[in-house]
C-alpha cells in the first residue's frame, strides 16, 4: 500500500512527538522540564515587554515601525543564531528513518515543510505582535497590521531555511560558519558605512509595503523561500546520505603519534587521548575551535581596540579570556566519554588518570591566552600581575569547581553526529550560572578589599594552592564519581541510545 504524502507527514509528526515525550533524560529530569518552560515564558515575556515599550522609544522623526523596518535584519540575525541552540536539520532527523521503505526525498520534504510551518518560527511574534498593535494598528487598522505580520512571517520562514542551509554546510565542513558571519557583517556594514543609508531606506520602503498587501513586497521572501527550499533539499539529502552511509572519513591521511608525550608514561597516553578526541571528532573539535577563536578575538579586541579601554571591561575580557575554553569544555566533562564509558570503567582507576590528564591539558591551554595577551601587557594596557592573577585563579580555583561536573554529568554527547540541544541537569545549570558570575565577583571583591596589587597577589597564592593540591581534590572528585558510577553509567547508556 502506497502512503500518501499527507499520511507520511502525519505519521512522522506523531513519531517525533513520541520521541520527544519518551526521551530518557527528559523523562527523568523534572528540573530540565521546568527550566525549559521557565525559559520559554521568560523570553516570551521579555519580547512582549520590548514589543510594548519599544514603539514609544523609537517614535521620533520616523514612525517607530519605519525604524524597526530599516534594521529588520538585526531581528533576523538574532533569530538565525538562536536557532543553533534549538532547531535540528532535516538531515539529522531523517537518519533514523533511512531504512524504512519511504522515499528519502519525501521524508526530506516532510521535514522541510514542517521547518517552514513550525510554530517555532513565530516565536519572534511575541515581540512583533505587540509592536504592530502599538505602532501600526492605530494608523492602518487590522488590514495593515495583518499584512505587516504576514510579511514578517515570510521573512522568518526564509530565515529558517537560510539557517537550515548554513547548518547543513557547517555539518559538511565547519569552516562554513564563516558564510553567515560574512553575510551578517556585510549587511551591517552596508547600512552603517555609507553616508546615506540607501539600503536602510530600501528596507523601510519595502517592509512598509507589507502594510498595503503589495504582492511585489511579498515576492522577495517568497522567492528566497523557494530558492532556499530547493537548495536545502539537495544539500540535506547529500548530508543525510553521508551520515547514513558513513561515506566520510574512510582513511586518515596522517596520524601523529605525539611521541613527545611518551615521556609522561600513562599520563602521556591519556593526554594523547585528549588531543585525539579534540582533533578527530566533529562536535568536540567545533567546541574547541570556537573557544580558541573567542580567545583570539578577545585578545585582539583588548590589544588593538580602544572600545574596551574601561577598567571593568578590561578586567572582564581578560578574565573570560582565561576562562572561556574551560567553561566550554569542562561544563560537559565526561559527556563525550559517555560513548565509551564501559571500556574506561573496565580498567583500573582509568577515570582518575583521565581526569588528571584533562586537568593538565586545561592547564596547558591557559598558556595560549597568556601568550596572546603579551602585546597588551607590553603596551601597558593591562598589568602582568592581573594576567597572572586571573590565570592562577582560573587554574587553581575555577577549574576545581568546573571539574565537579565530572561527578554529576551523566548524559552522553555524540562525538560526531550532530546534536542541537541537550537537557542539562540542575547541577549543570547552577554551575554554568556560577562560572559566569562568581569569578568576576571574586576578582572584584579582592580588588575592592585588598587593592589592585594585593588582590592579584592573593589570587596567585590561592590559585597556586589549588594547582599544587590537584591530586587531592581530583581524588575526591574521583571517589564521588565512583560512588555515583552506576547511576551515571545508566544515564550515559540511555542517552547514548537516543543520540
Amino acid at each position, binding site marked *: 500500500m502506497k502512503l500518501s504524502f499527507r499520511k507520511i507527514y502525519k505519521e512522522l509528526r506523531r513519531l517525533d512527538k513520541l520521541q520527544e515525550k519518551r526521551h530518557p533524560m527528559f523523562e527523568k529530569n523534572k528540573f530540565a522540564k521546568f527550566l525549559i518552560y521557565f525559559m520559554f515564558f521568560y523570553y516570551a515575556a521579555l519580547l512582549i515587554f520590548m514589543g510594548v515599550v519599544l514603539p514609544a522609544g523609537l517614535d521620533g522623526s520616523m514612525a517607530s515601525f519605519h525604524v524597526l523596518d530599516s534594521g529588520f535584519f538585526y531581528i533576523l540575525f538574532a533569530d538565525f543564531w538562536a536557532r543553533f541552540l534549538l532547531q535540528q536539520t532535516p538531515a539529522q532527523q531523517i537518519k533514523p528513518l533511512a531504512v524504512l521503505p519511504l522515499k528519502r526525498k519525501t521524508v526530506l520534504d516532510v521535514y522541510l515543510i514542517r521547518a517552514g510551518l513550525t510554530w517555532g518560527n513565530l516565536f519572534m511574534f511575541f515581540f512583533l505582535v505587540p509592536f504592530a498593535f502599538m505602532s501600526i494598528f492605530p494608523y492602518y487598522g487590522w488590514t495593515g497590521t495583518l499584512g505587516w505580520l504576514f510579511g514578517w512571517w515570510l521573512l522568518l520562514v526564509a530565515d529558517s531555511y537560510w539557517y537550515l542551509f548554513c547548518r547543513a554546510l557547517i555539518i559538511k565542513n565547519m569552516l562554513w560558519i564563516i558564510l553567515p558571519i560574512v553575510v551578517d557583517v556585510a549587511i551591517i556594514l552596508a547600512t552603517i558605512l555609507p553616508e546615506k543609508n540607501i539600503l536602510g531606506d530600501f528596507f523601510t520602503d519595502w517592509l512598509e509595503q507589507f502594510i498595503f498587501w503589495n504582492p511585489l513586497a511579498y515576492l522577495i521572501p517568497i522567492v528566497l523561500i523557494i530558492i532556499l527550499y530547493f537548495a536545502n533539499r539537495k544539500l540535506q539529502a547529500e548530508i543525510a546520505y553521508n551520515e547514513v552511509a558513513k561515506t566520510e572519513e574512510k*582513511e586518515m*591521511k596522517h596520524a601523529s603519534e605525539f611521541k613527545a608525550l611518551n615521556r609522561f608514561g600513562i599520563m602521556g597516553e591519556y593526554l594523547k587521548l585528549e588531543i585525539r578526541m579534540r582533533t*578527530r571528532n566533529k562536535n568536540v573539535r567545533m567546541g574547541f575551535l570556537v573557544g580558541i577563536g573567542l580567545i583570539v578575538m578577545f585578545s585582539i579586541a583588548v590589544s588593538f581596540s580602544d572600545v574596551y579601554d574601561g577598567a571593568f571591561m578590561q578586567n572582564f575580557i581578560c578574565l573570560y579570556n582565561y576562562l572561556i575554553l574551560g567553561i566550554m569544555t569542562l561544563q560537559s566533562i565526561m559527556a563525550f566519554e559517555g560513548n565509551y564509558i*564501559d571500556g574506561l570503567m573496565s580498567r583500573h582507576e582509568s577515570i582518575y588518570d583521565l581526569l588528571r590528564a584533562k586537568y593538565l591539558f586545561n592547564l596547558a591551554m591557559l598558556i595560549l591566552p597568556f601568550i596572546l595577551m603579551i602585546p597588551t601587557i607590553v603596551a601597558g594596557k593591562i598589568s602582568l600581575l592581573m594576567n597572572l592573577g586571573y590565570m592562577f585563579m582560573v587554574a587553581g580555583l575555577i577549574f576545581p569547581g568546573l571539574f565537579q561536573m565530572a561527578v554529576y554529568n551523566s548524559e552522553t554527547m555524540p*562525538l560526531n553526529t550532530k546534536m542541537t540541544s541537550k537537557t542539562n541537569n540542575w547541577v549543570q545549570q547552577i554551575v554554568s550560572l556560577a562560572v559566569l558570575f562568581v569569578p568576576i565577583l571574586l576578582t572584584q571583591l579582592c580588588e575592592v578589599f585588598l587593592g589592585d596589587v594585593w588582590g592579584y597577589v592573593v589570587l596567585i597564592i590561592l590559585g597556586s594552592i589549588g594547582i599544587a593540591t590537584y591530586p587531592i581534590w581530583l581524588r575526591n572528585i574521583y571517589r564521588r564519581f565512583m560512588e555515583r558510577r552506576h547511576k551515571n553509567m545508566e544515564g550515559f547508556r540511555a542517552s547514548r541510545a537516543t543520540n
Partner: protein
Amino acid sequence: MEIRLRNLKKCFGEKVAVNIDSYDIHSGDMLGLVGNNGAGKSTLFRLIMDLIKANEGEVIMVGEFQGQPVERNVAEQEDWKQWTGAFIDDSFLIDYLTPDEYFKFIAKISGVSDEQLEEHLAKYEHFMSGEVCGQKKLIRSLSAGNKQKVGIIAAMIQQPQVLILDEPFNFLDPSSQHAIKRILTTYHEETGATIVISSHNLTHTTDICPRIALLENGVIIRDIQNEDNSAEKELEEYFEIND
C-alpha cells in the same frame, strides 16, 4: 581466579533480569553461557564487570594475583580490573583511535610493554587477516567484524586471569570464528585463565567450553558438564532445534 555469584538479583522495573542464588565459576573454568534472547546473559556480564548495580547480592572474585591471595567484591573494590579483561559491546571501544593506537593505549595503561604488545599482536596476525593493524583507519570506520576483533584482542592484551566475552562469534566470518575458537582454547590451556563467553552458536560453544550454564529468565536452570560435546544434544533439545 574463581568467580562467586551470591544471591545475585537484578531487576529492570518489574522484570527480573538476573536471579542467581549461588553459582561458582571455578578457577580455570571455560564456561559457556547460553540462553534465549532476554535470558540475562549480557546483564550477568555487566554485573560481573560492575557496570550495573545489583539490586541484591554480590559478585566475588577469589584467587591469587601476583603471588598474593585475593578476595574481592567487585562492587566494593577496583583492583580486580587489573586481572580481568572483557569485551561486551562497542561501548568498550574508543572509536576515534586507530586499532594500533587503541591497542597501544590499552597496553600502556595496563602496564604492558611495547615488546610484549608486539608479541601479543603477532599471535593474532591470522585472526586479524591484515585488516586491522597498520590500516590508518579509525575504529569507527571498520566493519562490525573487525571492530569485534579489536575488542577481543584488546580484552586479552593484559593477559587477564578472568576473560569475559559477550557473543565473541558475532559478526565474524567463518574462518575468523574458527580462529577465535583456537585462540581462546590455546589461551585457556596456556594460562589457565577463567574464561566466560556467551553465544547463540551452540556448536561453537560446545566445541570449546567444557562447562555450560543455561540461563532462562535470569536463572541458571542447568549447569552442564560438556565432555566430548555431550551437551550439544541436550541444548538442541532445550532450544527445540531438531523437531
